[in-house]
């Protein structure tokens, strides 16, 4: 190991949040933290970072980290065990279940947060050596429809363009993408294009998001009707002679079919407008803009993907680009913006149940090829269970062993409550994680394996433009944490596959992955990084961000696909797809009259296990909320800032109500980030229906019928603690990280007196300062230990919820002064309130400091004038001797 240097150089690595994949310079501070800035040399961001990326340095704390392998004990507690023991238990568990019930009784559930190398090793073990394709990933919730759409149209999961297209386009169409919040750095590139080159921006989204703010045209489509809009567009392009027949004839098939279907869905602008709930003139404007503008990029994201017709939506978009030949040329193309940092990497290794490996599928030829390359004894022959189906299979006992890596399915999957119950039925439930506790761990994990986190991990990720970047470690592995690929390889060895998993390091894994991509490829597969198959260790360490394909060692230029055809279908031609008529899978009913939409907020990532550690990020949207259109607010008798219970056939949540005119009437929007760890009742996954897209298996998480009713709380408040505070049931709460500890915003029907009874239990072993005004419904406590503020609780009537700003400021301080402490429970800052010092004149409440000041300023010179100026000593006179002494002490005595 290297000796720690006093001036460590910045390490170039990659942001672990969104699919933009920004380059990051991390400068470790030698105390376990790091300062973070954008990498000016990275072609994704050229030095920019968004709020999440900038706060990475605040999320490195080891608080709550899982640092040792743990095993669940009979008493349900977790106990530390050695790595050897843990790996044996995992391997033996898998082995005996496979022996008894066959390979399809086990599964891996992976994550777009994993590095490509982790993904590769896990995929290889399951599909080649255990013999099951039950390997799926949370990317299923995010990107699967794009993958399926790409594969149907292009014959491969290919993103044809590059980020530069966003800089060079004259028209940017954003569909179902709140890029301003979810892909902020890319969004800034688009805005720069608009500003500098005059590009037009069209935003298509049921919800008026932040992204819509800068749009030239905002189309608030009815949920799930995007296909109708793009079908209408295809018809319009055909009818206005805006098609590129040359391209269609040379490089595609099935155009007539697709156009005929489009005509049946949306024959003209009026029909399109009716089908999509848009104004006809807006539709017309969009169609004209699109038809007129050669350089058009259509970027899409979860709003398109997360639907039971997501694949059709993707293809309806792609159809319009194929039909105009606007693909693979600078400034053009359909562009899938991936949500996760390494969704692309996962797709490249084939870490999805319906892919085999390296962009190969389950054709006999592919199975044979991969089998030979891996020298695998047990190649899986068919697709495995995709995410939603995988948890169904767990629920009905078909799958008995599961290893969850780097994801939190108990929160994020549809019907999260059902998923949690399913998890508890597993015979073997392994979780490799960064954190000691999350909803998935709490669902009963049997074995916890401590995984390396960002800053410690070593490997590669691929961003939305196919660019592979290194995630480099700049912190030492804490405790006994290990990379996920190492854990899998160790288990593989214990299962008897040592030879095929004898990686000496992460570079070995990468080289093998690169070699597989090139194996018998010869240009037949898009994904080929054969040029990197022989990188040396130092070369791997120094690897610059590089866009695939990298077919040979000297190919290093960025490539677009399909400008001149060259698709990866058998005839190398693209397919036009005829989409189904759009309709959400579930209709709204009188009992569930709203449509529930879900999404992200700006400053949080997924289930907040990491972004939740940053106080700065927590302050943007601290409470889980539901956005409701003002008209619906009145109709449903809700109050802005009040609370409401959202119910669907699958579960319910209790959220804060926010009125938003940007919300479509009839739609509710709820962010996805909260879990049982961070809120009492905001696990939105519980509400979401399990219907999936027939092609991609991606669930329809943005269109569940729902009901909403107002819930009143008599009191609201907050609590702050250095550690978690055991708030009693049935308090409504949301947890946020604040500097120096944890904050809770809460609502309750328990009167102040009830809270007073609980105060001791909430802050054990503390000295409690207390404020109570029962008739006004106010109760506040501050807990101290050895003079340090350990926590506090403020409860007040809901109509005047106590504000926490000034209390939080005190909570952040190392030590607080007496005056601040005296004012603390007022909830107001002590600024400008002088410390009067010990009271000298009790009758008039005159303090020592006040007297000294009067003497210092000359306002008083002796006991009499003190009396005149301050009244001190003029009543009972009992302080006169003391006043005399103060005057005496102050006047220098002649020596």
């Amino acid at each position, binding site marked *: 190991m290297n000796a720690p240097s006093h001036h460590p150089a910045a390490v170039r690595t990659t942001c672990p949040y969104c699919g933009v994949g920004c380059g990051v310079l991390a400068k470790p501070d030698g105390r376990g933290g790091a300062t973070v800035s954008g990498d000016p040399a990275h072609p994704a961001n050229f030095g920019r970072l968004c709020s999440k990326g900038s706060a990475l340095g605040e999320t490195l704390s080891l608080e709550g980290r899982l640092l040792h392998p743990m095993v669940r004990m009979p008493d349900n507690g977790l106990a530390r065990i050695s790595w050897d023991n843990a790996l044996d238990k995992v391997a033996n568990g898998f082995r005996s279940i496979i022996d008894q019930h066959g390979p399809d009784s086990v599964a891996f559930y992976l994550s777009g947060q994993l590095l490509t190398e982790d993904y590769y090793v896990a995929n290889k073990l399951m599909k080649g050596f255990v013999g099951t394709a039950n390997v799926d990933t949370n990317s299923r919730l995010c990107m699967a429809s794009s993958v399926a759409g790409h594969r149907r149209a292009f014959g491969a999961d290919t993103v044809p363009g590059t980020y530069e297209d966003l800089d060079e386009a004259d028209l940017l169409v954003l569909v179902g993408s709140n890029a301003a919040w979810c892909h902020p750095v890319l969004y800034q590139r688009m805005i720069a294009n608009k500003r500098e080159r005059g590009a037009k921006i069209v935003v298509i989204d049921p919800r008026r998001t932040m992204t819509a703010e800068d749009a030239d045209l905002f189309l608030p489509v009815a949920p799930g009707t995007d296909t109708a809009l793009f079908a209408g567009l295809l018809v319009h392009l055909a009818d206005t002679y805006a098609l590129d027949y040359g391209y269609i004839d040379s490089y595609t098939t099935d155009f007539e079919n697709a156009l005929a279907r489009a005509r049946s869905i949306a024959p003209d602008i009026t029909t399109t407008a009716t089908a999509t709930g848009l104004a006809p003139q807006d539709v017309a404007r969009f169609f004209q803009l699109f038809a007129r503008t050669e350089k058009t990029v259509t970027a899409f994201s979860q709003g398109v993907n997360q639907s039971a017709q997501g694949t059709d939506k993707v293809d309806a978009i792609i159809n319009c680009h194929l039909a105009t030949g606007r693909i693979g040329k600078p400034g053009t193309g359909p562009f899938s913006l991936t949500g996760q940092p390494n969704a692309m990497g996962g797709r490249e290794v084939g870490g999805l149940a319906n892919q085999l490996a390296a962009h190969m599928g389950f054709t006999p030829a592919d199975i044979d090829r991969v089998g030979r390359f891996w020298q695998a004894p047990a190649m899986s022959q068919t697709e495995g269970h995709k995410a939603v189906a995988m948890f169904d299979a767990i629920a009905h006992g078909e799958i008995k062993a599961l290893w969850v890596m780097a994801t939190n399915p108990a929160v994020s999957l549809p019907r999260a409550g059902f998923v949690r119950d399913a998890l508890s039925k597993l015979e073997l439930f392994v979780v490799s994680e960064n954190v000691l506790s999350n909803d998935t761990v709490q669902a009963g994990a049997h074995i916890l394996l401590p995984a390396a986190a960002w800053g410690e991990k070593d490997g590669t990720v691929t961003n939305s433009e196919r660019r592979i970047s290194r995630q480099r470690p700049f912190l030492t592995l804490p405790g006994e944490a290990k990379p996920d690929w190492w854990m899998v390889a160790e288990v593989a060895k214990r299962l008897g596959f040592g030879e095929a998993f004898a990686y000496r390091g992460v570079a070995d894994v990468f080289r093998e992955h690169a070699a597989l991509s090139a194996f018998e490829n010869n240009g037949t597969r898009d994904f080929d990084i054969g040029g990197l198959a022989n990188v040396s260790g130092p070369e791997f360490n120094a690897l610059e961000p590089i866009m695939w394909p990298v077919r040979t060692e000297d190919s290093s230029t960025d490539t677009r696909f399909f400008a001149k055809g060259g698709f990866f279908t058998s005839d190398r031609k693209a397919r036009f797809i005829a989409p189904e008529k759009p309709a959400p899978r579930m209709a709204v009913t009188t009992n569930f009259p709203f449509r529930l939409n879900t999404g992200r907020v700006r400053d949080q990532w997924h289930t907040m296990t990491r972004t939740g550690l940053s106080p700065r990020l927590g302050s943007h949207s601290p409470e889980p909320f539901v956005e409701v259109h003002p008209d619906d607010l009145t109709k449903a008798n809700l109050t802005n800032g009040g609370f409401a219970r959202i119910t669907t056939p699958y579960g319910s949540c209790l959220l804060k109500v926010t009125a938003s005119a940007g919300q479509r009437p009839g739609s509710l929007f709820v962010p996805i980030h909260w879990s049982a760890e961070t809120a009492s009742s905001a696990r939105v996954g519980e509400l979401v229906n399990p219907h999936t897209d027939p092609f991609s298996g991606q669930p329809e998480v943005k269109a569940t019928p729902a009901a909403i009713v107002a819930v009143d709380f008599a009191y609201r408040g907050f609590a702050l603690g250095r550690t978690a505070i055991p708030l009693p049931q049935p308090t409504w709460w949301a947890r946020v990280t604040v500097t120096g500890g944890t904050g809770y915003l809460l609502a309750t029907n328990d009167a102040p007196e009830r809270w007073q009874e609980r105060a001791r239990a909430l802050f054990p072993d503390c000295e409690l300062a207390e404020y109570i005004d029962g008739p*006004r419904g106010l109760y506040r406590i501050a807990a101290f230990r050895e003079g340090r503020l350990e926590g506090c609780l403020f409860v007040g009537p809901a109509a005047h919820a106590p504000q926490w700003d000034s209390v939080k400021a005190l909570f952040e301080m190392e030590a607080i002064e007496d005056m601040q*402490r*005296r004012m603390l429970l007022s909830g*107001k800052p002590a600024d*400008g309130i002088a410390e009067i010092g010990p009271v000298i004149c009790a009758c008039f409440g005159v303090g020592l400091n006040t007297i000294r000041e009067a003497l210092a300023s000359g306002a008083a010179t002796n006991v009499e004038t003190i009396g005149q100026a301050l009244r001190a000593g003029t009543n009972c*006179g009992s302080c006169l001797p003391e006043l005399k002494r103060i005057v005496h002490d102050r006047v220098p005595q002649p020596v």
Partner: protein
Amino acid sequence: MSEPLVVIGNGMAAARFVEELGKRALGRYAVAVVGEEPHLAYNRVLLSSVLAREVPASDIQLKPARWWRDRGVTLLYGKKAVAIDPAIRRVKLANGATLPYSKLVLATGSNPILLNVPGMNLPGVLTFRDLADVAAIAAVGQGKKAVVIGGGLLGLEAAYGLAKAGAKVSVVHLMDRLMERQLDLRAAALLKRAVEAKGVTVHLNGDTAGIFGSKHAEAVVLKDGRRIEADIVVVAVGIRANAALAHGAGLVVDRGIVVDDHLQTSLADIHAIGECAEHRRICYGLVEPAYEQARVLARRLSGDDKAAYTGSVLATNLKVSGVNVFSAGDFLGAPGTEQVVLSDPGLDSYKKLVIADGRLVGVVLYGDTADGLWYLDLIQSNASIDKIRDELVFGRALVERIAA
């Protein structure tokens, strides 16, 4: 010729009265002050500090001899007035001399109450009222055992003074808490802890059965059988207005010498102020009402017919170093009142506000008493506190900053 004005009693009320009168009507009266104690008037309040050796006895004189002389006051100290004859407007002194008056002011203060139990007149049983008492108490040696009967303001100050002087002190108190007339249960509990921290043992619910001793006090025996060894016993169970003279003169006397808002007794030209007076059925035991009465009377006797005394709202200060308590008004909170409480044991602070109909009607402060008088003003002004209620208990500075 100046009218003869005689003041009986040379205590705090008397001194203030002369001072106020001197400001307004110097020369109108020929003033004579008769005082039983053989001293110039002194600040009785400071006796506790003298006992605690925080202030030398020589420092507590209210005004020097010259001050009296300059105002032409005839000072007759060390002289006891034994009778008043209103018919002939004369005051008789113990030595037989008589003083004529046209106006008479009674400022005789009060006497300590003794318990009606055996042993009260044993040597070593003392009271705590004047300099002579302090001298007697202070004579008790280091390490001696002292028992103070009475856990009110006075008893606690005596106990503290004794403890500071090196005695082993116990306080026997009849009630379940100290200073029950000024403090609620919580403040009293805090006070008990603070007093104990000063080395004083506190016996609550202690009903004295008698003082045991053959020639000298040896122990205080309680009705429940507890027996507390004592070298001296200080009885501080309360005071009674000193109204014997008035009674003898046929003035109306109830608990004290009954006066009206003009501080006039039942006889014209005879007035009473200070602890000896009973105004609107109240006998005060503090200096501030005495001073107010002194001022009002001085104004009236200087010809200001409008001056009237309508009563005082009481506030209490305990002078035990490092222990601040303050209470005023309906600090216990009658039924139907509301309470706002702020406490912080770490800062040794407890504050309770009692509110009725949106107005402050009572307050108890323990520890942080700086704003006591401000609360008292609020109580007296009877102003609505609805708007400032949420800041009120945090003190004047916060309320004023928010209002600014």
